[in-house]
């Protein structure tokens, strides 16, 4: 019987590794596991960190599985006498604390620059002769259950009467840094764009800024990755990345005045 348990536990690292390689080589139905293709310049760095963590995890996962399975295989039946119990071992405690601590310390130091770049140092622009943080292009308001997008109108300012409101479909230009301002109307949401490696909790009463520089005109998925209530799953949005000229044209088309002018022209006919 012990052979069976030993094999079963050994199967965990073996099957896990096999699934990983099959998924990576695109075998159905495992294809597409993992993160979708990255379309953010900074996402390369995030993906690198993600892979580093995964390599560490893979080593720990395979080692643990092999040791556990091997131990059951080896010691499962021909136990002589009782197992020995002990309650304390300074040496063991120190070694696993140190090992884990070293890995965590390494990770925290290793990611410092990316953290600063993606969470702290908002892009800077020169406005009115002085350098200041780039103003947000779109205000994103999370609510139960959806995303409200207030695009700064042709005046380039948010919170003015020509803001363009679209729900669940975010329009932004690619090829330039874009800053979004995130707010919540009710509870904690989390703004997640897997294709941009962008994720930020949105806490009511707070204001968050995220930024990215998208690389191509694609349409990406927006999700809420904070369980926010019964309709959490419905908080799906789309992000339409368009060239700057397309974006400007889109903005002009959405202008409330333009809409009215067209309507009044129709009425006149």
């Amino acid at each position, binding site marked *: 019987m012990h052979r069976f348990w030993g094999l079963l536990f050994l199967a965990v690292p073996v099957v896990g590794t096999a699934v990983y390689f099959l998924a990576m080589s695109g075998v159905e139905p495992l294809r597409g596991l993992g993160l979708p293709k990255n379309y953010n310049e900074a996402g390369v760095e995030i993906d690198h960190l993600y892979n580093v963590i995964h390599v560490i995890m893979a080593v720990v996962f395979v080692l643990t599985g092999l040791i556990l399975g091997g131990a059951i295989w080896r010691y499962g039946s021909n136990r002589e006498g009782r197992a020995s119990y002990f309650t304390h071992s300074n040496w063991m405690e120190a070694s696993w604390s140190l090992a884990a601590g070293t890995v965590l310390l390494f990770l925290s130091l290793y990611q410092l620059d990316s953290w600063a770049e993606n969470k702290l140092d908002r892009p800077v622009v020169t406005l009115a002769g002085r350098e200041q943080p780039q103003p*947000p292009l779109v205000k994103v308001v999370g609510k139960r259950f959806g995303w409200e997008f207030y695009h700064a109108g042709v005046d380039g*300012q*948010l*919170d*003015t009467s020509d803001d363009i409101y679209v729900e669940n479909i975010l329009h932004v230009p690619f090829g330039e840094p874009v800053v979004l301002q995130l*707010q919540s*109307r009710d509870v904690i949401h989390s703004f997640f764009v897997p294709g941009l490696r962008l994720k930020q909790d949105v806490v009511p*009463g707070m204001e968050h800024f995220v930024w990215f520089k998208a690389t191509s005109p694609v349409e990406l998925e927006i999700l809420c990755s904070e369980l926010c209530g019964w309709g959490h799953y419905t908080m799906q949005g789309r992000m339409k990345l368009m060239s700057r000229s397309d974006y400007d044209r889109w903005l002009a088309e959405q202008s409330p005045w333009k*809409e009215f002018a067209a309507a009044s022209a129709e009425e006149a006919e």
Partner: protein
Amino acid sequence: MTRVALAFGWLLVALAGCGKVPSPEFRANQVEWVKQERLNLEKGEHFRAEYKPEVATLLTALFGTPDEPRLPAIYGDADPLNELVDLEKLKQAAGPVSSDEKGKHLGLYREHCAHCHGVTGDGAGPTALALYPYPRDFRLGKFKFKSTPLRAPPTDADLTRVIRKGIPGSAMPAFSTLPDDEVAALVDYVKYLTIRGEFERRLLAELSSLAGEPLVDLKSLRAGVKPAEPAEGAASEASVEATALDEQLQTLVGEYLYEEVVDRWSDRDDAVTEVPAPPASMLEVATAPGELVAKGRDLFFGKANCVQCHGATGLGDGQTQNYDDWTNDWLKTPGVDVLSRASYQHFLDAGALPPRPVRPRNLRVPVYRGGNAPADIYRRVANGIEGTPMPSSPSLTPEEIWAVVAYVQSMPYEQLSTGGAAASNQPLGDRKVTGK
């Protein structure tokens, strides 16, 4: 052995599930019932208990159930209700959520709307309590954001717009990705629920005039509305046989449903408020010219008296103790005092949502629920907002209304204090006291 038996038992339970879920039914308008009965009690009379099943049977006979909607259509092919609501679309929107072999979605209302607006359209779905403002109760027949004046129902285009674009600043989402036919089906279903609800309210309001006489002869009604045979003709299958209705019922349905409700809906397209062209100066520059804004400001504080509710700063902090019509509907009943919960507990027990004052819009935050196009704001000012304290402005000329629109549009840019710091760092919905 016991263990095996137990495991087997559990397996049976798991296979059988928890039994069939009963299909939902339209909820009776208990709040209106309680209200009408109390008004009646003032005169020392009780309603006959039989009225409840009678009203329910009549409504089912005329309008069907959430799974099988039907239209009274007592006037045959020329029935104005057929013009208003398409039975095929109703069937697509009604029923449980599913899809047919061709992938056509069915049960749209329950998929997208019912969790807030309720199966009955009473605005009391499971999530209603968590939302501000409450989801719309269709049964009063009042809609806020529309192109028609007060007391006229919204056009199909208005309803489509709200479904497609949502209502910014409220919980109403935008169903921008639904195909056109699904939105059209939902529009018809909303009209159906509204007309049904309005008719129910009319009926309940008339009960006291019956002086204890039966509302309808239930037996003949049941016989009359039994769908004859599942024949080919869809119309005869799903509608009440006109001949089977006795004369009393004909009169009742004709008067309360057709004259008072359906006709109003049939005439709405003629009532759309035309928006005259704005002054040319408004179209030419991004922000309206100073003198127009100044004129609007004078009106805001003077003749139009916007200041009373929206406040001197426009922050929506003027009159804040008003209620909307959906609450006032029962709140204004004699003996009810909003400050004493005990005085209206019976309404809450009947399903009314706890009263919450309606907040005048904060005009410094440019979130316009009915749309931010100048024509939208024009209509809000000219027509008011149905069901809310926002009044229409019959005394203003079109030029004056445009001036108010210009001022409203300029308010987010206006400097309130001398601070002048960038104001984008205020949490939404909070008071913004610094201008740009």
